[in-house]
C-alpha cells in the first residue's frame, strides 16, 4: 500500500541504495525550487474570498426578530443572551398598568462564540444570518460583547491600511490551490 518498496528492501543499510535514495530526495527538492505549491496568501495585502455559506460573524435583523429566545437556548457556548431593552422600561411611570413585559432581544459575546451556526439555523424568522467577516480584531475583551442595539448595527468592518487584493481559492491539479483575483 505504501511506497517504501520502491527503494530496495527494508532495514538495509546498503550504501548504494542509500545514495540513490538521497539523490532522489534532493532531486525532488530541486524540482520544488521551481514549482512551489503555495497554500498561504500574504494577508493582509491579500485576503481570501470566503465561500457562500461560510459561518462568519453574525448579522442580526432586529426587525425580523420575534424574541423567541431559541438562539439563546441553543447556543452551546452561552454566547447569546437575551437582554431587556436598555434605558429602563420596567416599573417607572407610576400609574401605567403592568402590560405585557418588555420584549427581550439577543446580544452576542464574540469572546464566547464558536461560530457553530446553530443560532442561525434555528432562528425561525431569519433574523440571524452569517456574514463573511471573520477576521475582526479587538483591543479589549469587553468590546466583543454586543448588546442587542449594537448587534443589530451589523458585524464590525475590518479596516485595511491598503485595500487588499481579494483572492478566490480554486482547486488545481498541479498546485493544489491556486488563487484567482476577484472583482
Amino acid at each position, binding site marked *: 500500500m505504501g511506497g517504501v518498496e520502491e527503494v530496495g528492501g527494508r532495514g538495509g543499510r546498503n550504501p548504494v541504495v542509500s545514495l540513490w535514495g538521497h539523490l532522489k530526495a534532493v532531486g*525532488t527538492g530541486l524540482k520544488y525550487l521551481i514549482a512551489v505549491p503555495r497554500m498561504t496568501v500574504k494577508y493582509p495585502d491579500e485576503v481570501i474570498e470566503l465561500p457562500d455559506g461560510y459561518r462568519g460573524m453574525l448579522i442580526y435583523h432586529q426587525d425580523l426578530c420575534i424574541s423567541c429566545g431559541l438562539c439563546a437556548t441553543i447556543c452551546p457556548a452561552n454566547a447569546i443572551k437575551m437582554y431587556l431593552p436598555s434605558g429602563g422600561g420596567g416599573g417607572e411611570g407610576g400609574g401605567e398598568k403592568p402590560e405585557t413585559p418588555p420584549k427581550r432581544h439577543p446580544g452576542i459575546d464574540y469572546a464566547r462564540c464558536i461560530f*457553530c451556526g446553530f443560532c442561525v439555523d434555528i432562528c425561525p424568522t431569519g433574523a440571524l444570518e452569517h456574514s463573511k467577516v471573520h477576521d475582526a480584531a479587538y483591543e479589549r475583551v469587553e468590546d466583543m460583547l454586543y448588546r442587542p442595539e449594537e448587534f443589530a448595527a451589523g458585524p464590525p468592518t475590518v479596516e485595511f491600511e491598503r485595500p487588499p487584493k481579494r483572492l478566490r481559492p480554486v482547486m488545481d491539479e498541479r498546485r493544489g*490551490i491556486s488563487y484567482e483575483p476577484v472583482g
Partner: protein
Amino acid sequence: MSGAGSGERTLELLIGPQHPASGHMRLVAEVDGDVVVRLRPDIGYVHRTVEKIAETKTYLQTIPLIERPPLADTANHNLGYVMAVERLLGVEAPPRAQWLRTLLAEMNRIHSHLYGLGIHGIMLGSSTAFMWAFGDREIMIEMAKRLTGARITYSYMIPGGVRRDLPPGFAEEMEKALRYLERRLPDYDRIFFSNPVTRARLEGVGVLTREDAIRLGVVGPNLRASGVAYDVRRARPYAAYPELDFQVVTRSEGDSMARMLVRVGEIRESIRMIRQILARMPDGPILAERYAKMIPPKWRDYVRETGRIKFPAILASLRPPKGAEAVSRVEAARGEAVFYLVSDGGPRPYRMRMVTPSLRNVVLFSHLTRGCRVADIPAIYGSLDYFPPEADR
C-alpha cells in the same frame, strides 16, 4: 530521582509538559546512558472534563464539545457521537445524509493523517515533511469549508442527518483536489517516506508485535501496522461504508515506518472512497422525515433551494426516552472511538462516555520505548499519531 549517589546508574529525564510535540503532556524517561530503561507517559495536562460538561449541555450542544479534543479529526467523532444519539432517539439518517457523513469523515481522515505525518516529520527534524503535510491539509480544509461553512470544527452531522447538501461544483473541484494529492504522494515518498534518513530513523524502531498489539488493545493504524486487519468500517460497517469498495490497509512489520506507511495507504484508500461517494451518492433528503416535517413551512423552499437545513425547534431540546442507553463505535482517523450515552429522559445526557483512540494507544509509550535510544523517543512518539488533547478529553 535515582541519583548516582545512591549507587544507581539511571537518570530521570523529563520531556515536556511544554508541548513536546502534538500537545501538552510529559514523558518521564529513566535512562541508562543513551538507553531508555523505562518511560512513563504523564497524561492529563489538557483534560477538559468533556464528559462532565456534556451532562450540562443538551444533546445538540454536546456536538461542538465532542469535536474539540480530537482536533483535526473532528468529523469522525461528530459522527460517532451522533450515531449514539440517534440510537437513543430511535431515529435514522436518510441514505444521502449517510453518504455525506461518510464523505466528510473520509476528507477528515486525509486531513488528520496529513496532520499526523507532518508532526511526525518535524519530530524527526524534517521541516519539509512538516511544511508539506501542513500545507496539503489545507486542500481538505478548503473543501470542507465549502461543504460545511467551517474549516475544522464542522458540527456538520446532527441527529437525523446532516446540515447541508453538496454545494454546486463540489464534485469537480474535489476531483482536482484528489488528483493533486495523488500527484504529491510519490514526491512525499521520495523526499520523506523513503528518504534514507527517515528509513534509518524508523525501520525496526519501536516494533509492536501482532500479539502485543492485540493484548494491549491498540487501535487504528497502529494496530493495523502490526498485521491486524481490524477496522470498524469493515468489522461493524456504519454510514455508507457497507456500500463502498475499500481495503483495510495493513502491514506486517509493526515498526514506526509501518505505522507511518499504513496512514499513507489509508490516504490512498480515502481518495478512492471519496471518488466513489461523489460518483454514486443517492439522491434524496438529508434530514430524517421525523424532523424534516417539523421545519417551519415558510422555510421549505429555502431548504430545497439552498440545500441547507433549518433546524426545527425540537432540536434545541431533544429528549430521548428515560433509561435509554446507547453505544456507538466508529473508525476515527487515529483508531476506534467509542461513545456511550445514558438518558434520564431529560434534555441533557445523564452520562456521556467518550473513549478516544489516543486514550487506547497511550499504553504504547511505555511498551515500545523499553530499551530504545533517547533519539528514538520522538521517532516512536510521532509514529503513534498520539494526540494528547484527544486522550485527555
